[in-house]
């Protein structure tokens, strides 16, 4: 009996990755780690795109993934720059301390 890898597997894996990322965002204080969690969530979504595209025989999923990759790359550039700037100023990357603009 051969093990058939169905789209459901990919979806399950993506859901697991997404939840790990979401929990990471909600529980970690370090901005860098939160950033990595976001990347994890993005890639989980990418996985669903590709799996779903493959399942229905469309290239649209891959197209969307390229968009996500580009946007994520841009986001990383800006986000890391901000984090580095904040770290230089405060010697810390804890987001809980960044509450100067609260209402």
């Amino acid at each position, binding site marked *: 009996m051969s093990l058939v890898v169905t789209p459901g597997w990919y979806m399950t894996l993506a859901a697991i990755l997404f939840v790990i990322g*979401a929990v990471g965002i909600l529980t970690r204080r370090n901005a860098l780690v939160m950033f990595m969690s976001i990347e994890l969530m993005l890639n989980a979504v990418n996985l669903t795109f590709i799996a779903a595209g493959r399942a229905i025989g469309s290239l649209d999923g891959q197209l969307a993934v390229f968009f996500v990759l580009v946007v994520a790359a841009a986001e990383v550039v800006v986000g890391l720059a901000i984090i580095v700037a904040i770290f230089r100023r405060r010697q810390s990357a804890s*987001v809980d301390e960044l509450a100067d603009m609260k*209402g």
Partner: protein
Amino acid sequence: MQDLLWLVIAFPLAGALVLHFLGRRIGEPRAGYLATLAMAASFVVSLVAAWPFFGGEAEAYRLVMWEWMPSIGASFELHWDPLASLMALVVTGVGALIHLYAVGYMHGDPRFSRFFSYLNLFAASMLALVLAGNFAMLFLGWELVGLCSYLLISFWFTLPAAAAAGKKAFIVNRIGDVGFMVALVIVFGAFHTLSFSGVLDRAQDILDPSTATAIALLLLLGAAGKSAQIPLYVWLPDAMEGPTPVSALIHAATMVTAGVYVIARSAVIFEISPIAGPVVATVGALTAFVAATIALAQTDIKRVLAYSTISQLGYMFLAVGAAGHIAGMFHLMTHAFFKALLFLGAGSVIHGLQNEQDMRRMGGLRKQMPVTATTMALATLAIAGIPPLAGFWSKDEILGVAFARGGWFGFLWVIGLVTALITAFYMTRQFVLVFLGEPRWADGAHPHESPRTMTIPLMVLAGLSIIGGFVNTPFRLSLEHFLEPSFQGVDLAHPSDDLGTFLLLAVLSVGAGLAGAAAAFLAYNRPTELWERFEASFGKLWGWWQKGYRVDDAYGAVVVAPGKKAAETAAFRFDLGVIDGLVNGIGRAVRALASRLRPVQNGLVRSYGLLFTAGVVAVVTWILVRGA
């Protein structure tokens, strides 16, 4: 030549504009001479344009300068007839003399050129009023002279009393102007035009007595405001806060006579109404009497003259009310001469005593101010009705008209006669207190005669006060023939032709005048303690006169205080409470809601993330549940 009539208005208007924009550069005293020159030029043009009327020409001349609202008969059109020419000559002639006087009086004032700019603007407005060919333009001039009056009364606006007096004059006049405006609306409703030719020539055919009464009484309200008659006279005494040339020009010689002019101009309408004439005459006679009694007890040299002006205007109203329009205009003219002279003389005294206006601190000034004293004496005799001076002829003609009409007017004649006695008394009292007796000046006062620019107008006006009456004596009715074309179709009242009646009335009125003058002379040409005791012997009555029967207090309690109360309620209750409350309430509600929501925005990224996640879960759940 009459095509150039517009120059009469254009000269002072141009003077006002030039002085307004270039006055400071022109400087003192040239600004004053320029303004005087504009008036003199205007006088010359009026004289030339009036020449045909002197020669017996009766046709009125109309000049439409430009169309404004032709559909309602309101254009900038001039109406030149004997009545208008008489007013124009008085305004420009007396006006020019007062302008010249003001050059000396306003010497050293920091806003010298501005003063003459206002004076010229006033003259232009007044001339627009008297030359107007329709009620719309007349109303325009009417409002403009009110504005100039306000500007000039409060010319020294840094003095709180002057600023308040200007406001008072303006507001009291508004009350009358409402009546005037409503009258114009009714006129338009009845005639569908406002032009004199369309209204006055057709009034006999169109107006019924009740409409005529309504128009006439509303016009009377307007005239009572402008000409300071009961019940709207209260602004004139306060207007004495203005510079004295202003009092002489606006509040004695010209503007305050506008009401008399309007009634004379609308004589046809007043004639149709059965009661308007008697009402006007009664208002006039009452005002003449009441104001004369108040004048008795005044101590301020200018306030005596102010109440005297109100009283003399009352005579004019008595005349035009009794349909003696020519007598009214005659008194208007002679009054312009001697009252302007009295005011200018008073100004000369005030000037010479460094702004002292209290007659109790004057006395004996005839030695220091001989020209002023002599001319004032002539004016005093003129207003007291001593022949052959101007006031005698005009006042006697008014009393003669009232006597000839008889009935109710006969009663008014008695009031007029008593007023003549009081007039002679208070004027003589003033003259004695100022010029005779012992000096009572404040220490350090150095009275001196005024400069030439001030004494020359005094002398000219004194001359006019002497001879001015001869234009219309019972023996030679020149003014009567001159003015008659303006009152075509009006049933004019005349004094009796009978020489005996004239002599009888003259003896009575001259007797009253002499008695009043003699009594005042005997009472006041004594040491100070004696006449002070004389005044004290009147007891409370004297205080009532001094305070003007407390009319100001009564108006304050009945009209001003409730008005202020209403304004305060509107401002502090309604505006602050309701309007502001509504606006502030909305603001407060938003703030309250915001402070409830604010804790959500706590600055913790993870709590935002949690909310966001919860939101996503909620939305997704909702979609899934609904999709199922």
